[in-house]
């Protein structure tokens, strides 16, 4: 028996309802997350048709696979889960069309020390880190964004950016070195 309408539920509760076949919950989840997801995809792919295609496939997958989120270990947001689905569909779409990211990415900093990155990504940026970040080349930035922010593997990054895997690894390595220096 439903006492609460979908608008009052958290995103995660919505996903659990979707797992039970609740269309209203699905529509509400779409309303809340689609603009954000579209923008995030669009920032990695200039082709709006492709973005639309990836969005459709991702949300169909959400409908089908909502049960697996509910069953996954607690913790991790619904939006994060949505992004992991969408990111992989984007990589697949690039594979199908033999294309790669066509949007310029602002240069991220180099470095792979996890704690430093979490600090940076939390909205409270160490001034030193911010300057190092701003100083990195666009190529290193793009790799770092794909691997750290978007959670892609080396292989997926190479597909997304259209560069060989060896290059991805080299750039990630250089990023790690530079950030270590910056924090030293």
């Amino acid at each position, binding site marked *: 028996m439903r006492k609460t309408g979908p608008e009052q539920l958290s995103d995660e509760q919505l996903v659990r309802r979707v797992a039970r076949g609740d269309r209203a919950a699905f529509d509400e989840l779409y309303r809340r997350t689609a603009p954000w997801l579209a923008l995030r995809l669009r920032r990695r792919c200039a082709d709006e048709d492709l973005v639309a295609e990836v969005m459709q*496939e991702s949300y169909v*997958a959400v409908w*089908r*696979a909502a*049960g*697996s*989120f509910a*069953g*996954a*270990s607690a913790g*991790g947001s619904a939006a994060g889960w949505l992004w*992991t*689905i969408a990111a*992989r*569909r984007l990589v*697949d779409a690039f*594979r*199908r069309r*033999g294309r790669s990211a066509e949007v310029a990415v602002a240069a991220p900093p180099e470095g792979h020390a996890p704690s430093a990155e979490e600090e940076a990504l939390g909205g409270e940026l160490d001034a030193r880190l911010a300057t190092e970040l701003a100083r990195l080349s666009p190529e290193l930035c793009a790799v770092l964004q794909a691997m750290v922010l978007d959670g892609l593997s080396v*292989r997926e990054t*190479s*597909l997304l950016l259209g560069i*060989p895997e*060896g*290059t991805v*690894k*080299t750039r990630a*390595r250089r990023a790690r070195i530079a950030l270590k220096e910056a924090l030293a």
Partner: protein
Amino acid sequence: MTVLSDPLAPTSAFAIEADGLSVRAGRHVAVERLGLALDTGVHGLLGPNGAGKTTLIKALATVVRPHAGTLRLSGVDADRGDLRALRREIGYLPQRFGFYPRYTAREFVEYLAWLKEMPRDAVPAAVDRALDRVGLADRADSRMKTLSGGMVRRVGIAQAIVNDPRILLLDEPTAGLDPEQRVSFRELLREVGGDTCVVVSTHLVEDVAAACEDAVLLDRGQLVFRGSIDELEAAADDVGDATASTFERGYSALLRDHRERVGA
């Protein structure tokens, strides 16, 4: 072939490298002193019955141990390296396989994904994606025993690709698929072949000609030909059946020449 100039990168450039590989099937030597280097792309494996194709694929899948020669997969020695780590990067579809009838397609692929030691959180989404890519998304929750032969085959393909392997080995993947499904399958191959080393063993000429970039031809365990589809077709001569395609005639000519040379 991508030559990695980064000195810190792994040394081997090839996904599959075989040198003097000999593999037994029972007491009979099915593959004899084979040398091969395969990189990213879709490679067709051809040959008459008994040529050793299935045994070779099993050796590449590390299911059977060669009794001579070396085999390197992604630069790692298959004999001495960490077998578990190697197998995580391999996808294998055998020529014949069974299934658990009461499992649904999704459960079956999930079980195999789990056996492939994929990270647990990634499994459901990956299974979904794999079934989607083989066109079985709406039958994902049907029990295996209710699926047709072609669908079962496609479930097999799904389990082979679920872990996004670097090396994909498919033994007669299109058996039981109707023409439309075969076309979809070839598109899947093209998509996957961009960043994966795919070896497709098949009898079906059109599949190789349409989806593969190059071909490896075996006869009685020996390497007959290794080159592009164009080179294979160029070997065609005017002998034999006029209704056969250029590809088939090239294939026959190469076999014939090889057998004459070997004195079989």
